[in-house]
C-alpha cells in the first residue's frame, strides 16, 4: 500500500499534531476548512430553524423555550431584538463562514494542487496561516452570540449609520465590534488563501497542463480568487472606516443630527450613510459570484463526468466565467435602487445587470447542451449537479425582475428578494457543494459515502428547498417584508400566514434531512466502504490517477505529464468511454 515516494518523503514520521493539526499539506488544510465550515453551517442552520419557528407561530407561548433561552424568550415569546440578531448571524455565517470558506478554502485547497499537477500550494505556510486566521474569525463571530447585549442586529449588510453607532441597539455594542473584527480577519485569511490559489494555478501547473486544459473547477477557482482579491480589500477598507466611526469618534458614515432613542447624537457630524452602501455592494455583488463561480465550475466537471460527454463548449464556459466576473464589478447599484439614487443612474445599473444575464444564460445553455442526449449516470453527485442547474435557473430568473429598477422598487426588501438570493446564491452553491462532497469524498478520505442515504438526502433536500423557497416569491409579491419579526402584526399579511406555516414545516423537514448527510459524512470517514479503485467514477482529471487518499507530495516520484483536455469522454473509436489527461495523444485512433 505504500507508494514509493522520494524527496517529498524526507520527513515521513510526523507526529499526529504535525500531520493532522498544524499541517501545511494542502489536503489536510482543505479538510480542516471543510469541517470548520460545516460546523459553522450547523450553527447558521440552527439559527434559521429558530427564525422559521418564529415566523410561523409568532405569538405562540413556549415555556420550554423560555426555559432554554430565558433572555431571548422573555415570557415565552421571542424578543424582536433576538429575531433580528438571528437574521444577522445566520446571513453572515452562511455567506462568509460557510460558502466562501468551503468552496475556495475547502474544495479549492484540496483540488488545486491535485488537479493542476503540483505537489502542494505555492506557499504552504501561508496556506496554513490562512486556515488558522479563518478559524480565529469563526471563533470571534461565534462569540458574538454570547456577549453582553447579544449578537449584532444590522443584517449581513451592516448598513450605516445604525451599525456605526453602538447605542443603536443591544447587539450593536460589543456584538457589532466583534462582527467587524471577524469580517476583517476573514478578509485577511481569504486574501492569504487567494494569493496561494492564483499563484499555484498560474505557476505550478505540470508539464502539458496549458490553461485551456484546466478542468473548469480550476478556472472557476482562479476567477473567483481574482474576484476576491479585488473585492475583499474594499470590504476591509469599509470595515476599517466603520470601526473608526464606532470606536474613534469619526463620522465617515454618520451624518449630523441623528436622534436615537429620543437622544440626539451630538458628537457626530458630516458623514454620509450611503457611502457605506456603495462600498459594501462594490464588494457585495462580486461576493455573490465568489460563491457561485466555484459551484458552477464543480457542477460543470461533475455533469460532464456523469453524462460521459465533454462539457458543451468549453471555451464559452471559460469566457463566460470571465465575463461574469468582469461585469460583477459594475452592477452594485442594483442593490440601491430605492436609496434615492438618480433614476438615470438606476437605468444604467439596470442595463449592466441585465447584461450579466447573458453570460449566465450561455452557461445554462451549455449545461443543457451537455446533458442533452446523454446517457446520464444518475449517481448522487450527478443528481446534485443537475439540481444545481435547476436551482440556478430558478433563482436567476427572479434576478431579471429585480434587476429592472421599475419592478424592483416594488419588490425591494420583500420576501421576493429573499427567495431570489436563497435559490441562486445559497441553495444552488449548497447543492454543488454537496455534489462535490459525494464526488470527491472517496479521494479525500479513501472511503465512499453511503449512496442510499445520499439518494434519500438528495430527494428530501431537493423537494425541501423548492417547498421552502418557492412560496417565498408569493409572500414577497403579497408584501411580506424581509427581516420582518412578526408577519401577523399587519392585517394585510394575515391571509398569507398559512403559507408561512407551510414553509416552516418544510424547513424543519429540510433541516432534518441535513442530519442524514452529517451522519453519513462522519460515519463514512471512519466506517465507509474502503476504496480499492483510484478512479471509481472513471473520470479524466489528474486527482483520479493517484491513490486515495493521496500521499504527501501527491504524485509519487514524478509529476504527471498532461496530454489532453479534461473532457475526453466517449471519444469515438475508443474502447473505454474516458481517457485520462495523462494518456499520450498517440493512443487515440482516428
Amino acid at each position, binding site marked *: 500500500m505504500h507508494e514509493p515516494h522520494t524527496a517529498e518523503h524526507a520527513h515521513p514520521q510526523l507526529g499526529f499534531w504535525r500531520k493532522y493539526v498544524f499541517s501545511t499539506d494542502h489536503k489536510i488544510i482543505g479538510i480542516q476548512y471543510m469541517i470548520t465550515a460545516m460546523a459553522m453551517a450547523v450553527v447558521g442552520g440552527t439559527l434559521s430553524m429558530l427564525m422559521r419557528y418564529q415566523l410561523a407561530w409568532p405569538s405562540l407561548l413556549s415555556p420550554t423555550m423560555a426555559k432554554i433561552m430565558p433572555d431571548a424568550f422573555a415570557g415565552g415569546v421571542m424578543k424582536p431584538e433576538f429575531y433580528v440578531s438571528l437574521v444577522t448571524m445566520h446571513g453572515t455565517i452562511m455567506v462568509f463562514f460557510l460558502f466562501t470558506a468551503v468552496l475556495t478554502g475547502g474544495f479549492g485547497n484540496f483540488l488545486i494542487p491535485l488537479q493542476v499537477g503540483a505537489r502542494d500550494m505555492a506557499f504552504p505556510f501561508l496556506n496554513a496561516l490562512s486556515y488558522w486566521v479563518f478559524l480565529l474569525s469563526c471563533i470571534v463571530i461565534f462569540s458574538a452570540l454570547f456577549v453582553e447585549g447579544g449578537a449584532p442586529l444590522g443584517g449581513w449588510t451592516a448598513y450605516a449609520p445604525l451599525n456605526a453607532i453602538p447605542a443603536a441597539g443591544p447587539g450593536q455594542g460589543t456584538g457589532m465590534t466583534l462582527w467587524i473584527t471577524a469580517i476583517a480577519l476573514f478578509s485577511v485569511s481569504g486574501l492569504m488563501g487567494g494569493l496561494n490559489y492564483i499563484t499555484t494555478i498560474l505557476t505550478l501547473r505540470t508539464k502539458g497542463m496549458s490553461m485551456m486544459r484546466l478542468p473548469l473547477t480550476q478556472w472557476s477557482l482562479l476567477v473567483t480568487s481574482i474576484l476576491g482579491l479585488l473585492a475583499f480589500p474594499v470590504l476591509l477598507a469599509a470595515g476599517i472606516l466603520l470601526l473608526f466611526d464606532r470606536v474613534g469618534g469619526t463620522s465617515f458614515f454618520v451624518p449630523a443630527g441623528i436622534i436615537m432613542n429620543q437622544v440626539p447624537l451630538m458628537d457626530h457630524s458630516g458623514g*454620509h450613510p450611503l457611502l457605506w452602501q456603495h462600498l459594501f455592494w462594490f464588494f457585495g455583488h462580486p461576493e455573490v459570484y465568489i460563491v457561485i463561480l466555484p459551484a458552477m465550475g464543480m457542477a460543470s466537471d461533475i455533469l460532464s463526468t456523469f453524462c460521459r460527454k*465533454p462539457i458543451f463548449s468549453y471555451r464559452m464556459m471559460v469566457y463566460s466565467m470571465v465575463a461574469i466576473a468582469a461585469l460583477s464589478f459594475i452592477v452594485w447599484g442594483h442593490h440601491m435602487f430605492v436609496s434615492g439614487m438618480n433614476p438615470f443612474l438606476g437605468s444604467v445599473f439596470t442595463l449592466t445587470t441585465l447584461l450579466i444575464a447573458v453570460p449566465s444564460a450561455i452557461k445554462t445553455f451549455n449545461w443543457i447542451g451537455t446533458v442533452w*442526449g446523454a446517457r446520464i449516470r444518475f449517481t448522487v453527485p450527478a443528481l446534485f449537479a443537475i439540481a444545481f442547474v435547476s436551482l440556478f435557473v430558478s433563482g436567476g430568473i427572479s434576478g431579471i425582475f429585480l434587476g429592472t429598477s421599475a419592478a424592483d422598487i416594488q419588490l425591494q426588501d420583500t420576501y421576493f428578494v429573499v427567495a431570489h438570493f436563497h435559490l441562486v446564491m445559497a441553495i444552488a452553491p449548497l447543492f454543488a457543494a454537496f455534489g462535490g462532497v459525494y464526488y470527491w469524498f472517496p479521494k479525500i478520505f479513501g472511503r465512499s459515502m453511503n449512496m442510499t442515504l445520499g439518494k434519500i438526502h438528495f430527494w428530501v433536500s431537493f423537494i425541501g428547498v423548492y417547498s421552502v423557497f418557492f412560496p417565498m416569491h408569493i409572500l414577497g409579491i403579497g408584501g411580506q417584508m424581509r427581516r420582518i419579526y412578526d408577519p401577523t402584526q399587519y392585517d394585510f399579511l394575515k391571509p398569507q400566514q398559512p403559507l408561512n406555516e407551510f414553509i416552516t414545516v418544510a424547513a424543519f423537514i429540510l433541516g432534518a434531512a441535513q442530519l442524514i448527510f452529517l451522519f453519513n459524512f462522519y460515519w463514512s470517514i471512519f466506517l465507509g466502504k474502503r476504496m480499492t479503485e483510484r478512479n471509481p467514477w472513471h473520470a479524466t482529471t489528474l486527482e483520479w490517477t493517484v491513490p486515495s487518499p493521496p500521499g504527501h507530495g501527491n504524485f509519487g516520484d514524478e509529476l504527471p505529464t498532461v496530454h489532453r483536455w479534461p473532457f475526453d469522454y466517449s471519444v469515438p473509436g475508443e474502447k473505454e468511454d474516458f481517457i485520462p489527461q495523462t494518456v499520450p495523444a498517440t493512443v487515440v485512433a482516428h
Partner: protein
Amino acid sequence: MPVISEEKRNRRIVPPPPVLPGGDGGDGGAGDFGGSFPISKGQLGLWILLTAIIMLFAGLSSAYIVLRGLPTWQNIALPSLLWPNTAVLVLSSLTIELSKGAVRKNQLQAMKAWLALSGVLGLIFIAGQLAAWRQLVHAGVYLPSTLQSSFFYVLTGLHGLHLLGGIAGLGFVLFKAMRNRLTVFNHEPLKLCATYWRYPGGRRRRCTN
C-alpha cells in the same frame, strides 16, 4: 427524450480545444523564475499582495473623494513636516534601487550599505510621520475633528503600517545579505523588497490636497 443513435451521438462530440500557442503549458517546476510563467511565484505572490493593498487604498480613496464633495467638508491645515517626510521616503526608494544596482554589479558591500540606509530612512520617515501627528495634535486637530482630519490619520496610519511591513521585509533581506546569501545570480528577495518599496513611493497619499 429521443434516444440518439451511437453514430449520431459521436458526431455531436465537440472536439477539444487546441493548446494555446506560445508554450502556455505548465512546466512542472517549482514556480521559480524561468518556468513557463513569465515571472516567478514569489514575484507573482508579491504582485497579488500589492494588488490587494492597492484595492484597499482605492476603497479608502474613493470614500475620500465622495465625502470631499459634501457641503460639510472642512479642510485642515496640513502639518509642515509632511513635505520633508515625503522627501525622505522618495530618497529611500532611491537608495534601495541603488542597492539593487550594486548587487547586479557584484558590489556586495555597497549593496549592504544602501540596503541599511534604506531601512534607516524608512524608520526616519515613520518617526517623521509620528512627529507630524504631534504637530496636528498641538494645533488642536484630532482624529474626529473634521472629515479630512479623520482621513488624514487613518490613511497615514495605514500607510505607516504598510511601511512597517516593508521595513520588516527589508530587515529580513539585510539579514540574508549579512550572511552572504545574496549574490549576483540569486537576489530575488532584494528584488521583491524593492518592488514592494517602490510602490508606495509612486503613489502619494491622496489626502494632501
